[in-house]
């Protein structure tokens, strides 16, 4: 027995009584969340890197406030090691959706001595300080992030509205209960709330939505040839910030990126997928999780994500 309605060309009224489709339900929920935040917080800001989740988030924000413009700024914490294609796309997409973009730069912090490079060269963990500074100096009381609960088991524990203390810290043992769709964003001065409108989306939902809504993405999400080296089981791009190591063999391969963090911690996957449909097929067949396959920063320890989140990272 199945109650799933069959596709057809029923008139609007009959069709309207069917349950919403998965993507309609997810879209409606995210739009509801955006509107609640805009209506109840003084100065929200949205993290925007140009990666696929943040682009979907921006598209949903534009829909939530239409026919008015997106009522908050975008913020990118640039590690200085980002892929140039993604930075170009980031600027174009902000303009396309009519949003204003602010950039906080990890490089500036390193140049003036407020941050020091790590021995392993990874800059992702260094983002937390400029992020928290930008939140404080911008007087932001709500910060949208594109985190999804299917990404990592520490994220599976996070509420859609996640209260952070004045140091940006997450306390997983002391979270506010979240009931029905009654989101409670009240907080004390100095505290802020991280909001995750994509909480209930999975990697495949994101790609399905990109296909359904014809959303453009940075080119590196699709197969292209690149000089790569196999390090720790991952295909790392040879770039000015991740140069070839002594005696290391390199090769040109057709690759694409499944997640886009910075060049020092994001690896590519071998791929021939040049269209959204190709990518969806590959994602469906992959036996590796999105972060497990390509994120060096999550391999630091079994609780790497939880530890970074506790410190104020997303």
């Amino acid at each position, binding site marked *: 027995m199945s109650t799933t309605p069959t596709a057809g060309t029923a008139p609007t009224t009959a069709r309207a009584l069917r349950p*919403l489709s998965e993507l309609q339900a997810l879209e409606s929920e995210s739009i509801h969340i955006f*509107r609640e935040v805009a209506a109840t917080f003084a100065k929200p800001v949205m993290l925007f890197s140009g990666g696929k989740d943040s682009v979907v988030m921006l598209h949903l924000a534009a*829909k939530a406030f239409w026919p008015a*413009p997106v009522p908050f700024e975008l913020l990118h914490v640039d590690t200085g090691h980002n892929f140039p294609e993604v930075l170009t796309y980031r600027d174009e997409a902000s303009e396309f959706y009519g949003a204003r973009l602010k950039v906080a730069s990890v490089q500036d912090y390193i140049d003036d001595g407020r941050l020091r490079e790590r021995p392993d060269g990874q800059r992702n963990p260094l983002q937390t300080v400029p992020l928290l500074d930008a939140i404080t100096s911008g007087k932001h009381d709500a910060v949208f992030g594109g985190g999804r609960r299917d990404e990592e088991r*520490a994220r*599976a524990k996070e509420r859609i509205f996640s209260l952070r203390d004045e140091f940006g810290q997450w306390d997983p043992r002391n979270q506010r209960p979240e009931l029905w769709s009654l989101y409670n964003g009240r907080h004390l001065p100095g505290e802020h709330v991280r909001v995750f409108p994509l909480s209930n989306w*999975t990697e495949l939902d994101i790609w399905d939505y990109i296909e359904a809504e014809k959303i453009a993405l940075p080119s590196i999400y699709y197969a292209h040839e690149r000089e790569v080296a196999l390090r720790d089981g991952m295909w790392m791009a040879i770039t000015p910030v991740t140069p070839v190591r002594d005696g290391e063999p390199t090769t040109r391969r057709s690759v694409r990126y499944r997640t886009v963090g910075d060049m020092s911690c994001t690896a590519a996957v071998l791929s021939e997928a040049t269209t959204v449909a190709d990518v*969806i097929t590959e994602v*469906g067949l992959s036996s590796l999780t999105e972060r497990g396959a390509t994120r060096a920063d999550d391999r630091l320890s079994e609780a790497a994500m939880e530890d970074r989140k506790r410190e104020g990272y997303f």
Partner: protein
Amino acid sequence: MSPTLQAEREASLQGRRTLLRLATAGSVDDGKSTLVGRLLFDTNSVLSDTLDSIETASRRKGLDRADLALLTDGLRAEREQGITIDVAYRYFATAGRKFVLADCPGHVQYTRNTVTGASTAHVIILLVDARKGVMEQTRRHLAVAALLRVPHVVLAVNKIDLVDFSETVFDEIATDFALLARTLGVRDSHAIPVSALEGDNVVTRSSRMPWYEGPTVLGYLESVDDTSLEVGEDFRFPVQSVVRPQSAVQAPWAASAPVVDGDYRGYAGLVAAGRVSVGEEVVVLPVGSHATIAGIDTPDGPLDVAVAGQSVVLRLDRDLDISRGAILTSTDAPPAPTRDLTGTVSWLTDRTLAVGQRVLVQHGTSLTKAVVKQIDGVLDLDFDARSAPTWRGTDALTLNDIGRVRLTLAAPLPVDPYKEHRGTGSFILVDEADGWTLAAGMAGPTSLRTLDVDPHDTTAEPVTS
């Protein structure tokens, strides 16, 4: 691409795949984490790198096979202590449906976690150990599911392998449970014999229980009616914000969006219940004025009808003083705005609630000050199999209590009885000082059938002014 995956993809792209929210509940050691792990594992929702990591961890613990319970313990402290501390959300999908599972910890005292997980659930899966049958905790969880009006309840009689797959044992437990469900007023319940550890009847049909002819747990989840209760109710639309663009908006990202001029005025919100059509008359609460729907707008183009669950912008045929917090409703039986709010609350914190205390009430899109006028009683969930929950007198509520309270509101709110409207009948109580969420509230008479005749139970009276 495999045939299953292909079918899944097609259903999803044609908009046929629906979203079903479910919650799990069970006592410690009933095997709840194992059942959830089994559901994820047997629906191929666990990828090999995750599996490798739990196999390594299981070997470290001296186990000879992967401990599926490890799939669900997300926090360092949970893994270290082997317990579940807080609700986690899991995702799995089949050809026709995507499932959002609220994985609730089962500790005896954690009624609040079950309330959190069940508040949005369409289905709740309760677990019992076949060797123990229906326990106090099962009754507690079932009462919570009934109170929260979860439409479908399924009992997984786990560890059936440890009672030799006995039909008699299963039948006894299933009969006890069905009786209890009827007593509490649960709309729909079903029992399934399973072994989560060995995978019997979770995703794969077991050959070891030929006497059981019903669906597997997954089969049940795939076939249960997923039309939300809200779709059949009277129209309710809490206004989130008034949309008044200062000038015409260029939206190159929304090619099919209608062009709007500078006079545009719409009301953004999510349809909480029922449906609304262009040309239909609505009531604006709490003011009580009437208007007609002039348009239903979305950036993907206008709609003729909007239904429960959809985020839209409504336009009316006349200018009215409407702001965030207003509710548009059908002209049939709109709720009467009242300053006296009576309801059942599930107390979620270890702070105490006492008479005279000031709190904030968040209902729909409005936030109102309130004072606690009276605490009628606390629900005694330690009822036995042949009785029903009863109210016991108290002057205070504390962690995990379910109580009846009367509040006086600073401004009238149009609140529906929860048993008729989950969306506009629910509210939360918030601490005025630090913003903490104190309680989950269900307005009006309780939906526990056996308590309908409770002497304290009176419907809120309308404001007379």
